């Protein structure tokens, strides 16, 4: 049970970051960039949180070998963060 929580939590964190960056990327060129005063920052955060929650629950219920999953998390964190930080810096 506790391993399932760990699997779900790792999926949650990664998907929140990824979802937030993709949502930001989708909004490029639309009203809401750094040059305007109407940035739906918290709506974007809330939506990313919801995506993370769904992904976390799905991963926790679907993954059978939690150790094999957790072994891959460091690489996934490196890849996801590289992508997300690039988006955050290039598209403020």
């Amino acid at each position, binding site marked *: 049970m506790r391993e399932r929580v760990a699997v779900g939590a790792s999926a949650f964190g990664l998907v929140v970051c990824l979802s937030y960056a993709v949502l930001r990327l989708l909004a490029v060129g639309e009203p809401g960039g*750094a040059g305007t005063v109407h940035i739906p920052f918290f709506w974007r955060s809330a939506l990313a949180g919801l995506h993370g929650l769904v992904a976390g629950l799905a991963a926790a219920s679907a993954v059978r070998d939690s150790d094999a999953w957790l072994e891959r998390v460091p690489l996934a964190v490196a890849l996801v963060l590289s992508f997300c930080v690039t988006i955050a810096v290039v598209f403020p």
Partner: protein
Amino acid sequence: MSAEVLYALLERLHGHLGWLGLAVLLHPVITLGKGRGVSRRMQLSADLAALLMAAPFALGAVIYPTYRSGVKPELVAQAPAVAAVFETKEHLAVFAVALAISGALVLRGAGKSAAGRRAARSMLAGAFVCAVMTGLAGLWVASHAHPAW
């Protein structure tokens, strides 16, 4: 207490709590790197760090409407580069909070296994890197664009 004073107070609290969370987050990142098992203190510091990262984020949500209506229009008009750094800071804060919370939960759930500890450490270290960039960006923005209240 006027709205301006309350905003200034909450804004400072937001910044100080964020730096405190950053400092606490360093403890599990370092101790998990030593390859030992999870101690009670290590778990406590990871949980506390996640809480101290989430609290300033929530405070940011409270002061954001005032920032958006009272500070941001002038900031965008007079210093667009500073406004852009502020936006980047917001994005990085989301990544830091998400990874800190998930890292603490991974440690709680799978801290007994080596794979679980490695996963937790990578998430907490990622959160730390994002939080450092967030804190530095916040300091830089505050030093350039503090409202004259």
